[in-house]
């Protein structure tokens, strides 16, 4: 797959500029996007987890419980509200953030995001690894299947929404626009 190739290429390059990614070598779900903001700006935005629901579909809120712990709540339009506690497992300002759900939580997830300077003032390359095949639970898969989407599409969509939000201040949408699918009577 194309994404895998790209990531592989980026991973190599990235290693040469020092961040250690050995823990993530074998993960399959890696995504890359280029965002026209500096690594520090994107890091700061992302590090404040209360910003995540602004671009992550279905994520209703994130409550900060302590400097490293937070409570994530997902609200499915058709299904139940699900929440879990997550903790930050590593944090290198301006470079990368890693988090995972607590061992006893109902939903198991793990993620890592890295921010690299893109060449020629193009902003940053953002690399996201999502582990949603942790033994004991496949939350993202399960959540997205309920909505008829696949998890890859959802993660990619969310990354694009993050990019749009940071670059333009809004996320493109047509939700709520008019269409002939819901005609109205003229008064």
């Amino acid at each position, binding site marked *: 797959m194309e994404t895998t190739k790209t990531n592989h290429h980026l991973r190599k390059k990235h290693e040469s500029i020092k961040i250690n990614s050995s823990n993530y070598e074998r993960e399959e779900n890696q995504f890359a996007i280029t965002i*026209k903001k500096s690594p520090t700006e994107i890091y700061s935005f992302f590090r404040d987890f209360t910003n995540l629901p602004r671009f992550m579909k279905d994520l209703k809120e994130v409550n900060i419980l302590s400097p490293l712990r937070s409570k994530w709540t997902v609200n499915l339009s058709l299904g139940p509200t699900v929440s879990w506690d997550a903790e930050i497992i590593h944090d290198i300002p301006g470079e990368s953030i890693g988090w995972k759900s607590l061992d006893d939580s109902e939903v198991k997830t793990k993620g890592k995001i890295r921010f690299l300077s893109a060449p020629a003032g*193009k902003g940053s390359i953002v690399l996201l690894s999502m582990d949603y095949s942790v033994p004991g639970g496949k939350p993202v898969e399960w959540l997205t299947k309920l909505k008829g989407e696949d998890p890859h599409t959802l993660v990619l969509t969310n990354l694009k929404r993050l990019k749009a939000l940071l670059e*333009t201040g809004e996320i*493109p949408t*047509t939700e709520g626009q*008019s269409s002939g*699918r819901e005609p109205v009577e003229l008064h």
Partner: protein
Amino acid sequence: MKALCWEGKHSVAVKNVRDPKILNPHDAIVKVTTAAICGSDLHLYDGVIPTMEKGDILGHETMGEVMEVGPLVKRVKVGDRIVIAFDIACGSCHHCESDEFSACDNTNPNAVLAEKLYGQSGAGLFGYSHVYGGYAGGQAEFIRVPFVDTNALVIPKGIPDEKVLFLSDIFPTGYMAAENCQIKRGDTVAIWGAGPVGQMAIRSAFLLGAERVISIDHVASRLKMASESGAETIHFEEADGILDEIKYRTGGCGPDSCIDAVGMEAHGHTITASLDRVKMAVGLATDRPDALRQAMQACKKGGTLSIPGVYGGFLDKVPFGAAFGKGLTFKMGQTHTQKYMKPLLNRIMKEEIDPSFVITHRLGIEDGPDAYKAFHENKEDYIKIILKMH
């Protein structure tokens, strides 16, 4: 409000729908005064563009008056008369900053779907299928315009709608097509298709210094309009071998550059054209690229092929060997409309061109469904239809 909705292949209806509202902070709501039907809309009408949904509001050549603006709109004001670019650009991404507005990264909410089809997603487009964002179009009484500061050209008072409406699409499209030819003094440009885009390309090629323009079509009235713009014409059904004819007329060299202003639904009676029709009918091909094939064959060595005509999928029997053998340059794509609107408005104001020359019919919104049918079936009488919305 009333809107023209796509209801399926060869079916357009006037429907009463909800008025649009501001959905994002850089949006505006515009009362549409005039809209046009484009050759691109015919591809939708024929059902050859994937991911249309019943009830989608059509139209991407639109102008009107600003009624309301979102809280982060800075430049455009309520009451302004604006022409709206057909492609929706954010104005801040890497591509927008490089004037590649139709390649904008941030306006297609369905970008992931587009990437699955094309590897990357272009900008969202008004009224042009869900893979291009599914935005409600402008053949309606009102339209919501995202990033209005980037996508609108404010029109000075006193210029009638008809003179500036085509800054929304076909004039920039014809102009960019000609610009992509990199015309040098003395050049001959051959243009397939004498529809509105072809007509704008003819005039633009002359504005950019072409010595000769050869216009190719099989509709007499359109060829007549082309010759009134100064082009030499070839009726491809009457000509004795279109490629021989072009070669002869260009002293054996072929045109310096060729423009395909026909796109994916070329007509013709060549063997390849007939095969295309059969294959497309049974779903074995997505496009009928006969004009493109001819342009590739005709072009001179080292020449440029400029393709404003729209293609959607996988093309059959494209003579790539000819293109390679002659070292052709290809330039194509959706127009970066926003890049051209202002300079072309200046050309209109300096009276170098009045794009309204292509208009043959001025109709109302209620006439919309018949207008689509007529434009589709009767290319002789209908060259460009505009619809008065208010």
